[in-house]
């Protein structure tokens, strides 16, 4: 009986949290499916007024002539930039995180400090210098430049996150491998990487998402429609005087769908990480 009760309590608590998480999104959904002419009234349950798909059609470009091809290109840009950001961040951060977690070296503490310090500086001061830097590198208006910019925020975070995780992995396994004749690199690749896989997945997901949703830098750096990422397009529905909130909401839902799908995939990895990773204490 007590067991049932506690199971009930757990589900109840989780459902409360789910309600809290989903409720504002339901308002976005309701807005996205609403047609014109709904009256404003205080409502508890979000139901679309005059439901329809007009907003989704408008965002996908069916309303304009031949806009759907452009939408696909921009979707491709978003995917490419976000995947590349995640890949670059992980490739660069993982070895550095490993060294910071496991190996003593001169300047380690200062390095950690500088890394944390970079996160403390509000972006309001560095946007202009960053623009100049990309200009000198001839990377303005290119997806590679955007990836580089996103990676700068993703790398420090990835290093922190992975260093923390690697420190929790028992050092015995590596030592055993090295006693058996493995080099440091082999121990890193064959022992540490598999064990850190869940954390790497989470970190990659984070890098992907931050790149996927960003628009201010993207709009400032990119100057071609065919190079735009989706959040810029989304933001274009908010004008100076008026905004198409319905289209905006529909676009936001479409834009976040891939992230949801990705999370669903990565979460399997998260669970699998435990059994496949071979962390046997």
């Amino acid at each position, binding site marked *: 009986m007590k067991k049932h009760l506690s199971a009930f309590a757990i589900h109840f608590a989780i459902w409360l949290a789910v309600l809290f998480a989903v409720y*504002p999104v339901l308002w976005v959904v309701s807005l996205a499916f609403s047609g014109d002419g709904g009256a404003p009234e205080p409502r508890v349950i979000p139901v679309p007024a005059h439901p329809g798909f007009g907003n989704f059609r408008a965002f996908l470009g069916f309303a304009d002539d031949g806009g759907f091809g452009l939408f696909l290109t921009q979707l491709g840009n978003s995917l490419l930039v976000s995947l590349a950001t995640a890949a670059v961040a992980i490739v660069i951060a993982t*070895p*550095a995180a490993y060294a910071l977690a496991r190996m003593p070296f001169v300047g380690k503490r200062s*390095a950690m400090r500088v890394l944390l310090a970079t996160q403390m500086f509000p972006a309001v001061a560095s946007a202009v210098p960053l623009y100049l830097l990309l200009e000198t590198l001839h990377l303005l208006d290119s997806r590679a430049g955007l990836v580089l910019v996103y990676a700068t925020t993703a790398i420090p975070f990835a290093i922190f996150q992975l260093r*923390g995780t690697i420190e929790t992995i028992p050092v015995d396994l590596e030592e055993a491998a090295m006693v058996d004749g493995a080099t440091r690199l082999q121990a890193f690749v064959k022992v540490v990487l598999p064990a850190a896989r*869940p954390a790497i997945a989470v970190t990659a997901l984070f890098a992907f*998402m931050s790149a996927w949703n960003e628009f201010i830098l993207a709009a400032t750096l990119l100057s071609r429609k065919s190079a735009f990422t989706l959040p810029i397009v*989304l933001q274009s529905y908010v*004008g100076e005087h008026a905004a198409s909130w319905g289209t905006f909401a529909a676009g936001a839902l479409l834009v976040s769908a891939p992230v949801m799908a990705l999370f669903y995939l990565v979460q399997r990895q998260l669970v699998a990480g435990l059994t496949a990773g071979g962390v046997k*204490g």
Partner: protein
Amino acid sequence: MMTRLLRFACFCVSLLVLVTCAPAEKAPIFVWHAYRGNEAKALEQLSQDYGRAHGVRIELLALPYSAYASKLEAAIPHGHGPDVFIDAHERLASYHRNHLVAPATAAAAGDFDASVLDPLRVDGTLYGVPLASKCLALIVNEDLAPKSIASMEGLLESPMPQGVYPLAYEAQSAYAHAAILHAWGGQMLRPDGSFGMVGPEAEASLETAKAWSAKLAKEPDAALVTQLFTSGKAAAVISGPWFLADLGGTMKVKVLPLPMLAATGKPLRPFLTVEAAMLTPDGAKRSEVQDFVHWLATDAEALRVRSTVGKQVVASGGGGGESETTRAFRDAAKGAMPMPTLPTMRSTWVPAEQALRKALRGDASPHDALEEAKARFIDAIRPPPPPPPKTPLLLVMGAALLLLTFRIVQRVREPGFRAELRASKPAYKYVTHAAVIVFALVVLPLIAGTATSFFAGTRSDPTYVGFANYAAILTARGGDLLGHGSFYLTLLVTILWTVLNVFFHVGIGMALALLLSREKLRLRPLYRTLLILPWAVPSYVTALSWKGMFHRQFGAINAILAALGAEPISWFAKFSTALAANVATNVWLGFPFMMVVTMGALTSIPKEVLEAAEVDGATPWQVFWRVKFPLLKPSLLPAVALGAVWTFNMFNVVFLVSGGEPDESTDILVSAAYRWAFTRDAQLGYAAAYAVMIFMLLFGTSRIMEWFGEKREGK
């Protein structure tokens, strides 16, 4: 394993190759704009037609309005801008000051009224080719509004069906309020560039707005005004030509010039803005660009398309086939007052709006609110101090460098340093690439950003002011140290904001992760996916959804409160409730991150340890505090520290949800910095000084924490 790694490497390389190859471009005419909907469609159609007829490619780029000005300011001075850009004349003075525009006298030859040309002049020279004019008018629903509207008072008093408001307009916006102000004979900005919204006329205008607001819908923003009108809940609205785009075809709508204010005997007089094609210095050199702009502004076909497809009130002539509503807007524009182009105009909006809101809420008398607004305006446009000698800065920098060198030399001379360095060699192989990238792309721009904090004035001609920006921040600009908007008060708010957020983020995130880590839990994947929703949906749309939920009259939160039998709350009228609204939104946005991080960390706790604890008879509570929590701590601590830093600098939520309401009291340090950078005359140097102060605060705090941590470990 190796082959998999190799495959991954190949994947990364191919990604990079894909990313870097971009198609080459020829040199067409580049036009940037922030239009959407009909106006964008008309411009596209015209560009294609012109391109086909004249054998030149017109490359249009639609940009989000929120990033428009900053992109122009970044791109044009470095030669990466367009040849032409379209914007309202309101920001022309600031564009001119930053050398983003070239004289347009030649391209503007043609049949223009002086009323649309004058606003585009700076110091007597014409800097734009007028395309369209925009002003507010009265848009009425003919089924609901009285047949003839003699005065605003008449409209507001006329009998309405149950639940229908006689009028809806953005009462809290200074732009809309200006029409009432002008009817009373007041002005926003005096011709000499000083703040004009003071005195008996301005006070009377606030009284009028307050009297009206009692009869109208609460907290009306643009979306609510539209919604009220389209659903037949408002008989009339005060809005501009853009409003018509949102209306369906079924409504019987008439556009009238703004009516008389019976109390003054004068009509409401809105601001007139002129939208113009502005030539950049590079674009003005090309004759084909001049020709295109001239054609766009004056050709009969171009006028017809912009008028009929784009629904614009075109600035030249009537334009063939102009609709009745468009013509009505043209009539309304005749009585409108051109918005001043003086550079200080940009700094009037925020103080004026704050005074307006204060008066509407009844927090202050109109007189006090306006006097305060004037003081804030004067403070915001205060000229930079005279350039001081450079020696103090050089001394400080020299001392800092000397100290750094001393520390390094000291370290190098320590016994065993060489051996240590030799032992570090293998580690450097793992970190060098990351160090180089972080240094080049993160540290260097930050150093450059810091350098701007020693300057004041505009981006194109900054003047060196030494430590004046810092001195002004630390002395609260000569005002009360804990007074409105002072650095110290904002700091206290920021700390409160950070503590509340981090507490809830970690608490909720960790609790959910622990609940979800039970393997026997049913529906686990579903729960996980639903709980991550706040993180997955772009925050700028969900933050706005939250803002809507906190609406006084139509918000879901007050609806829930009402269902529970509680009184509705004006969320953004008081500091405590406005802060609560911001915190609720940010907790909602941030807890999934802590949840996912905890979930990741939980998976690296060996199962055997937990099993062993259970075998030993530990209760779940003990398992958590004695086993899980200590094991989680090392991998969670950096995430919590980062989370705290991010929250400290979380600009979006504060900006989108409360917007600093009431009266900038919920601003945190970063949003204060943004105010200086974007709404108060673009004082980038001052904003940079704020950023450096924020940095030093955070860095100092982290060093102190580190020191305490070491001390405890050392014990």
